[in-house]
């Protein structure tokens, strides 16, 4: 399914509709903040160690895929589960003025912070008018 999302001018990061569905995954909650020099995304990924996080930019897509790794004692039977899947997945489409080459990310205590700067040419600058 390829959902057609109205690309409103106020939203620089557009969420992608369902892609080819792989195994079911949890949708992590995110905050997305834009400032004049770029976009910062925060995602809650509790239970994900650094090596189980797969963050990639493919074309104009930012894909977050992560696996939960909880050390669980042997022989534990779950009696109540609100987190019922062991995988997180979410994808965003980056808009043109963002620079996918300069994405940086850090993961700390289950919170992923991704910084996507705007390309040089897209950053605000004053344009001087030349008079012939």
């Amino acid at each position: 399914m390829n959902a057609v999302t109205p690309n409103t001018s106020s939203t620089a990061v557009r969420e992608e509709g369902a892609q080819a569905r792989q195994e079911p995954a949890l949708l992590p909650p995110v905050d997305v903040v834009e400032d004049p020099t770029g976009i910062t995304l925060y995602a809650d990924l509790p239970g994900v160690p650094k090596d189980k996080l797969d963050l990639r930019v493919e074309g104009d897509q930012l894909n977050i895929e992560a696996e939960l790794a909880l050390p669980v004692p042997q022989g534990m039977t779950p009696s109540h589960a609100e987190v019922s899947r062991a995988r997180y997945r979410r994808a965003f489409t980056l808009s043109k003025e963002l620079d996918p080459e300069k994405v940086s990310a850090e993961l700390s205590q289950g919170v992923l912070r991704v910084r996507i700067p705007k390309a040089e040419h897209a950053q605000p600058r004053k344009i001087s008018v030349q008079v012939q």
Partner: protein
Amino acid sequence: MYRSLFPRDIFAELDRLQRDMSGVFDYSPSIRGFGRGGYPALNVGSTPTSVEIYAFAPGIDPAAVEINLDRGVLTIDGERKATLPAGDEKSTLHLNERFEGRFRRVVSLPDDIDPNAVSADYRDGVLHVSVKRRESAQPRRIEVR
């Protein structure tokens, strides 16, 4: 900070609806209500020797979390501070789904737990509380002489 008038679009709403629905369809109601979907999310499991509680609480200061066990009821209390830059006129908040503020979750534990044998650790945003069962309640092999 500027917040848009329509912070959620229809697709985000559908996602949320789907999450809420999945919560409705495998519920086990208790005296404390459904108790689902809050922050932090809770998973509870048991082994023959202990009860294990996992609270999915990313981005908190573990020192500021209070865990109390009173008459078989475990309470997890804490606060998640805002990470978003406040009061910045030039930034725009496009999506705001993460929880912030004070939280409290309550779990009632089985009768055979030992209130003096509780341990807790915080790793990768998950608070793990382990409560041992009383020695006398643990399964034992009885030898026939």
